[in-house]
């Protein structure tokens, strides 16, 4: 038996310790949205990579061993938090063998801590409500104001790890904020005529977006978070939509369109596949284009709805 033990020990010793490039800070993020914001404030002084793709449901990502390798080399891990990644991130972090990014360590950044969080449950929370997030709705990045708060958190974290680059990161942050302020002004102006428009969404991915841009979410295709549509709920929803004259249904790219389309046919509503994330479609390559694309999609649909009236 000693032979085999010796074999293992040799294998461990022979394996060279992964040489880490000391130059650029290696930042991993759980979603492409966080990666996009990190890229804005980190510029070419960091490398950034996201685990989940933008067209993927961020609640259900597979904990593939290939992600362990990426986390092993990370200096900083930025997570969405609010239990969005609870189903897949903990085992990855645990197996990463990287003490820097363990929760509670300096390299672990929960981006939600300064963000404005909606739908914080009050009172008793049970799973009879579906797959509820007891710490509030985790889709907070869909509000550019939260984008700024996340950017600041990331810039501060990067500065902590690279004090010499602090001025650079702060400058990038100021630039990002200015650019985002200007863009947001434009988005708000575009959306202003449609303030109070009633919409239905598939999952609860859009409360922050709706609040910022003045949409009124009156129902969901899912009867409860994480529970697939049921016939009775769909019928009720159609009745409600007709009564309230709802003409827009927003669906995240990873949900089946069968039920939304049949709701659309019955109510005459436009069914929009609206990505809640950077990378949700090919065109959305950064944080600005996320809002450009989504708002444009909405405006086009409103034109059609107006035309059919």
């Amino acid at each position: 038996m000693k032979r085999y033990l010796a074999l293992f020990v040799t294998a461990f010793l022979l394996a060279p310790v992964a040489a880490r490039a000391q130059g650029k800070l290696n930042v991993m993020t759980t979603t492409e949205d966080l990666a996009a914001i990190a890229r804005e404030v980190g510029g070419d002084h960091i490398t950034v990579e996201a685990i989940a793709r933008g067209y993927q449901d961020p609640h259900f990502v597979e904990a593939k061993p290939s992600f362990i390798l990426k986390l092993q080399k990370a200096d900083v891990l930025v997570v969405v938090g609010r239990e969005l990644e609870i189903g897949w991130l903990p085992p990855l972090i645990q197996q990463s063998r990287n003490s820097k990014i363990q929760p509670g360590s300096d390299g672990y950044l929960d981006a939600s801590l300064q963000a404005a969080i909606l739908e914080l449950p009050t009172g008793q929370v049970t799973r009879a409500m579906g797959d509820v997030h007891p710490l509030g709705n985790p889709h907070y990045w869909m509000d550019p104001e939260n984008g700024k708060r996340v950017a600041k958190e990331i810039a501060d974290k990067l500065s902590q790890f690279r004090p010499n680059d602090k001025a650079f990161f702060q400058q990038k942050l100021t630039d990002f904020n200015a650019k985002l302020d200007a863009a947001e002004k434009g988005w708000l102006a575009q959306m202003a005529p449609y303030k109070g428009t009633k919409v239905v969404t598939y999952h609860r991915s859009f409360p922050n977006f709706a609040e910022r841009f003045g949409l009124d979410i009156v129902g969901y295709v899912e009867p409860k978070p994480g529970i697939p549509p049921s016939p009775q709920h769909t019928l009720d929803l159609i009745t409600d939509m007709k009564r309230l004259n709802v003409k827009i249904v927003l669906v995240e790219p990873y949900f089946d369109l069968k039920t939304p389309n049949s709701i659309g046919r019955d109510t005459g509503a436009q069914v929009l596949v609206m990505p809640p994330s950077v990378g949700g479609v090919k065109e959305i390559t950064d944080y600005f284009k996320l809002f450009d694309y989504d708002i444009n999609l909405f405006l086009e649909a409103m034109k059609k709805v107006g035309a059919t009236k």
Partner: protein
Amino acid sequence: MGATRFVCASVVAGVIALAPSTAAAQESPQALRQEIDQLRKDFETLKQQYGDRLTALETKLAAAEGGSPPGAAPPPAAAAAPPAQAAPPVAQVPAGAEGAGGPTGALPTYGSAANSSKIFNPDMAVIGDFLGAAGKNDVNPSPAMEMHESELSLQAVVDPYARADFFISFGEEGVDLEEGFLTLTELPGGLLTKVGKMRAAFGKVNTLHNHILTWTDRPLVTQNLVGGEDGIDDAGISVARLIPNPWIFLEATGQVFRGDSGDLYKSNKRSDLSYVGHLRGYQDITESSNLDLGFSYSRGHNNSATTAPAGTPESMDDFTTQLYGIDATFRWKPLQRSLYHSFVGRTEWIWSRRDQPTGLQSTDGFYVSGDYQLGRRWFAGARFDRSGHATDASLVDTGGSFVITYWPSEFSQVRAQYRRTNYETAPSIVSSANELLFQFQFSIGAHGAHPF
């Protein structure tokens, strides 16, 4: 605007209340009109004042929320203060307790602030596993209905250097510590070390808890060659290291156990340790598909010595079993439609070499399985089994199963399995069993990680 409305209403009410009294005075209409005009003027002034104050308040509120006040230019970015949330008293999750399946960020505290120690409680969950069986099985019968297992899991971070996981199963035969181990996450050299009682890293099925399996049972090869349902599950130390290479994920695991695992290994003295070695290679083929390969080896002393005929020379105590295993898993899950479709194909082949007083018994066994997700809630699968008997290499059992699973939600599932097994009870004597097996599984408590 409610305040303005209230003010208007009260002023109007005042006017109406005053009106009869002035009318009753029977003064000249001229004086009456003057009085009304005066009142109207007072009311307008008051309305203007309240309106101004409300507008000022709204602007302040909008600024505090980080938004732009209506009609005004957005404030400079630096002024975008964090939101002033009127939140209940909060406690922060302790450093190090986050992420390990535990909560993150601020937690509401219940009762007095002194109760904040509750947040150090481990994550708890209970998974119930109810089994039903119909049909005939003369060789290995299971009851018509049983609460097969209730697994209690307690998991938390111990300190900045380690976490602990306990899985306690309450079965028909009593309570058993299925696993209970400490994981050291901060050891130098990238060594992931576990200490405690754990399922050994031998192949795939041996590492999996019942509720993660895609069947209601375990394959024949597990039953016959790798210690049955509990498998290699023993007290010991496990060390795993990633082997850096430019191509694939490669992990080597070495484990040393006391040497007691069901009827597979039996330790008669302190030096009768058992060992498990495992090498795992993983590679993404595309973003939707991947291949997982494993090689396993295990060695330990078996229970032949205790059953050896009296008078066996002492040197004959030293009966060992050696197991060799190869496992392969192919997974397919399209990222954008991962909620609706997936496929997992898996096979494990195990070769057993068991020393016993009657001589060396060398036999092997395998299973091949496939599971396809038909829709968001439906899964269908099949498995083929074949395995020799560890203690009598001349006997070989075969079997096959079809499985269908329905998921009402992420936290419960209902499963039906048709299983046909041909048990070879004596050379060329086969006892066939046709069974329909049912399973209800349900989980309460902390949201565990999804298995991969």
